[in-house]
């Protein structure tokens, strides 16, 4: 039986982003928002870039994780692979074995894409943006590790998404994402005061 304290603890919220929505800091960025601001012409580009611009202009504390960087680079490698072969990304099979077969060609022609995430973060940080990499401490890392299986079970997230939510929940007050897999948070919100803000077309 749940204790009264457990029942009274706040639950995460899941809201759609709209113009003018107040975003509490610190803000944890999902990879799709970061990459979505570096790649033009897709339906969410303007929203991703403007959201990022607002965070930078308002000197909001932004948080990234190694998982975010990993997902971003995988996505850019796939985009490069599709560009090389004129494939449609949504209809293209992509996995580590395909990457290994085409790695040299991808890096030969599109290394600037692969390095763009690191260069962007470096440029913005050097210019004064407040961007941190989390988890910050060993204790927070342990807390994140403990939450991953909980979110995989209760919120039905993939391991990667559970890592994102655990890191965001432990370090940030807002989590910006374009991933529909986090919609489950709306139906079944775990404990915490994090607000998951979904960017939609």
């Amino acid at each position, binding site marked *: 039986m749940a204790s009264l304290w457990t029942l009274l603890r706040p639950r995460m919220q899941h809201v759609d982003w709209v113009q003018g929505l107040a975003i509490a800091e610190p803000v944890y960025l999902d*990879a799709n928002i970061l990459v979505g601001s570096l790649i033009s012409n897709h339906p*969410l580009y303007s929203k991703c870039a403007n959201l*990022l611009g607002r965070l930078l202009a308002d000197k909001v504390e932004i948080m990234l994780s190694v998982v975010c960087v990993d997902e971003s680079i995988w996505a850019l490698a796939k*985009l490069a692979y599709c560009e090389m072969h004129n494939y449609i990304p*949504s209809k293209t099979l992509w996995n*580590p074995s395909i990457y290994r077969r085409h790695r040299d060609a991808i890096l030969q022609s599109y290394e600037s894409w692969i390095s*763009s995430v690191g260069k962007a973060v470096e440029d913005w940080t050097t*210019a004064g943006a407040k961007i941190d990499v989390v988890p910050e401490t060993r204790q927070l890392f342990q807390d994140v590790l403990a939450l991953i299986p909980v979110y995989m079970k209760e919120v039905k997230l993939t391991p990667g998404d559970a890592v994102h939510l655990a890191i965001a929940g432990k370090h940030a007050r807002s989590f910006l994402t374009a991933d529909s897999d986090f919609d489950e948070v709306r139906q079944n919100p775990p404990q915490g005061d994090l607000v998951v803000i979904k960017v939609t077309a």
Partner: protein
Amino acid sequence: MSIGTMTAGRLPKLRGVEDVHVEFRSDVEETGASLWDQVNELLRTSLHRSGFPQPTPEPLQERYEEVERPSLIIVAPGIALQATEYEDRYGGIDLTYYREHMSPELFRAFVRRIGSIKGRPDLDVGEFVDTPQT
């Protein structure tokens, strides 16, 4: 022949050669100057008078229009884009707000990176950005 003076005497008619077309082109970027066309015209006329008929050159104006560069739009110091790329990257971005609310260094870093990779309208970043499964 003295140095600095261009001369063209009658060239001997080569056996088996009916037409010779000579054209000089700059091997560096076209600057729009007509120097090479003047040299070319001088030699063409000379060859024509020497018995080697030359084709009629296309009008100079048309040739310059082909190499004319589209105008560049300066977004920030050191960042200049053609109009189409500018529209793709900044068409929906409130640059005026960011220019007013960011330091010049941050604004430059921001506009330098956003939209720097050309995507496509059918790209769903919400689904696309993920760690691939084996």
